């Protein structure tokens, strides 16, 4: 990306208004629709997590990354998968060190208990010693705990929450609503600065109502031609305006066809990059045929589209103004 991040010390916080957010995100290379910007605005002002849904490759994860860059905050990312549990997401005890600690304790025990003649006295001494076994030193923070502990806030991205188990989703509820976690041995840890939380979902399974209720919901649809042209222009430097118009019109026409996987924004951007690399100045049937595999990810789709290429290209050049 050639777009330089303008990290001038901003007088006004970048999330002050919807317009400021759109401009700010554009500054870090993310073209946001009004609805996306509004979601971000509300997430900040209501301090609620945002649940981002949409088909793959539409820019869900990218939104979190762009926001982190915009706000100049660290991004803590947690990828969800089946079987993810709290010891991988929240915290883990450092078993090895705890073990060493007990060894040391054993060695020292003789010294400490010297002179304690009765059992009661020994127990009193034992209670007098600080209990270190379950303490902060032995706590290994995982992404969620890290996010709560970062000074000055951070952007927490919980990626593909729909891939995790039902139980894990329930476990997230406390963090999402109160920005705190309870560790049985230590107590409750509360975030100093509530992080800005993004959850993304591909709708592999339906999320529970409880989770949805705690989140603002943002559905990112596939963009219209105008927005997509802007996105391509920002993400792919060196692509000509005419080519952009043509290729976006072509992709848009592909989306009207029943395909197994319609191309989304990331595919469009990849394709534009490929075309720039090939020094293609306009869409010709040959170029498109050779690069179709960038756009379509399934053999059946490619086979279905190939015979109709000419027809589609004709319509695309018409739609782009036919200049």
């Amino acid at each position, binding site marked *: 990306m050639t777009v330089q991040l303008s990290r001038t010390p901003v007088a006004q916080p970048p999330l002050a208004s919807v317009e400021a957010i759109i401009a700010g995100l554009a500054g870090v290379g993310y073209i946001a629709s009004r609805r996306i910007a*509004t979601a971000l605005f509300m997430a900040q*002002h209501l301090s609620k997590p945002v649940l981002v849904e949409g088909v793959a490759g539409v820019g869900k994860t990218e939104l979190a990354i762009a926001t982190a860059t915009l706000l100049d905050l660290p991004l803590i990312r947690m990828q969800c998968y089946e079987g993810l549990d709290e010891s991988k997401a929240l915290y883990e005890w450092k078993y090895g060190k705890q*073990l060493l600690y007990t060894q040391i304790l054993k060695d020292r025990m003789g010294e400490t208990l010297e002179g304690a003649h009765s059992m009661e006295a020994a127990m009193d001494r034992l209670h007098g010693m600080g209990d270190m076994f379950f303490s902060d030193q032995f706590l290994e923070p995982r992404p969620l705990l890290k996010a709560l502990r970062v000074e000055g806030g951070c952007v927490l991205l919980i990626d593909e929450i729909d891939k995790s188990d039902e139980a894990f989703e329930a476990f997230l509820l406390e963090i999402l609503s109160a920005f705190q976690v309870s560790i049985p041995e230590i107590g409750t840890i509360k975030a100093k600065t509530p992080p800005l939380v993004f959850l993304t979902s591909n709708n592999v399974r339906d999320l529970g109502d409880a989770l949805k209720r705690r989140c603002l919901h943002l559905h990112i649809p596939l963009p219209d031609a105008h927005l997509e042209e802007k996105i391509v222009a920002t993400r792919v430097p060196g692509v000509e305006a005419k080519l952009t118009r043509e290729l976006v019109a072509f992709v848009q026409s592909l989306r009207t066809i029943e395909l197994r996987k319609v191309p989304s924004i990331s595919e469009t951007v990849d394709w534009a990059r490929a075309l720039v690399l090939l020094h293609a100045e306009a869409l010709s049937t040959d170029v498109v045929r050779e690069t179709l595999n960038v756009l379509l990810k399934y053999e059946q789709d490619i086979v279905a589209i190939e015979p109709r290429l000419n027809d589609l290209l004709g319509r695309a050049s018409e739609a782009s103004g036919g200049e």
Partner: protein
Amino acid sequence: MEDFIKALRASEVRVSPAEAIDAHRAMMEIGYADRTLVKDALCIALAKTEEEVERFDACFDAYFTRDAFTGAPPSSAPQPGEGRGGDVGDLPLAQMLLSGDQISLAQAMQAAAIRARSTDVRLNTQRNLMSRRILDEMGLRELEELIQRLREMGLPRDAALADRLAERREALFEESTRFVDRQMVLYASETGRRLREGLLAQQKLTSVEPEEMRQMEALVKRMAKRLATRYARKRHRAHKGKLDVRKTIRKSMGYGGVPFDIVWKTETIEKPKIVAICDVSRSVAAAAQFMLLFLFCLNEVIEKLEAFAFSDRLIRVGAILEEEELDAAIASIIKKIGFRPTDYGRALSDFSELHRDSLDRHTTVIVLGDGRSNYANPRLDIMREIAHRSRAVIWLNPEPETYWGQGDSRMDQYKRFCHVATVCNTLNQLERIIENVLRTYMPR
């Protein structure tokens, strides 16, 4: 705001009180000035799925356009000289009508609607009553009296005024009907639909009208989805409380024999295997079609679903159902084997040839058919074997139980080999039965 949320709920966007509070907080942050901003913000706070976003957009537009008073009476500018003569008195409705003040009228109607509690309107038959009530609240009775009085005065000027008032009153009638219609769309469409769906779910599968098919299909899909999510949840569940000694000791090796990492026994829950055999002869074809659709929607929970269809011969239909749309699939199945006289004996022997080896103790066999074998050999021996090999045989018969065993029905004989043999004639029954099947596989 409360009304809008009510309207949202009516158009099937589920809004909890907590979300309503969120919406209020959001509005406090952004104010009411910018319409698109308000729409976006409320959408983000309230609509929680893609479909809900769509419904929200539609509902928002419908709700916030109603303030525009559409059907304006012609040439509303009051003519000089007769404008607001003292004759009209201080009746606000008459003044508004004469001066053609659309905005005040709209506001008055809105206020009257609130007093008349028009958001409670639910049924078509309530519409006239409701529009009448709104007009009454706006002061219709007084207006009528006024017109009457003017007419009685007998002066030409007053008579003309009365005529004009009467004319505008007609316009007002129309306006109020339109208003109530919009309210109906906003608040009541949902209730009516739910009522219809409830009836559909109880309707006999064999007598579904063609125009209801689409709706029925959607209903079947929703039911299947509901079951699928309910049972998908329970699949992985650790049984806390039972220590897995072997694994714990194995893990403790890493910590010098101290069992730090304690492993609990988990129970893997087997997914049910279902074999569905559907009779597609004319009498039960409709029921079979829904049954197949239902099972296919359940694919998520059911690891192995094999579907067969038969009339005189039996074929595997899994592939057809998976590849084609419902209508096309049913059509091609019917074309292949449909509408011939049923022969249960033949079908069963086909089945045992095709699939006997894969029946095991995890398999539940569901048979859907009326058990009418056209006096052919029912092959009870095969039925016995199927029952013996599989976990359960469930026979769903669309005919009422009193017909079983009458005429060419062999149901009374087949019944002996079934773990469950029951009448299944509505979607509700189908759902209940499938749920029972699933439940037997799941832990309590």
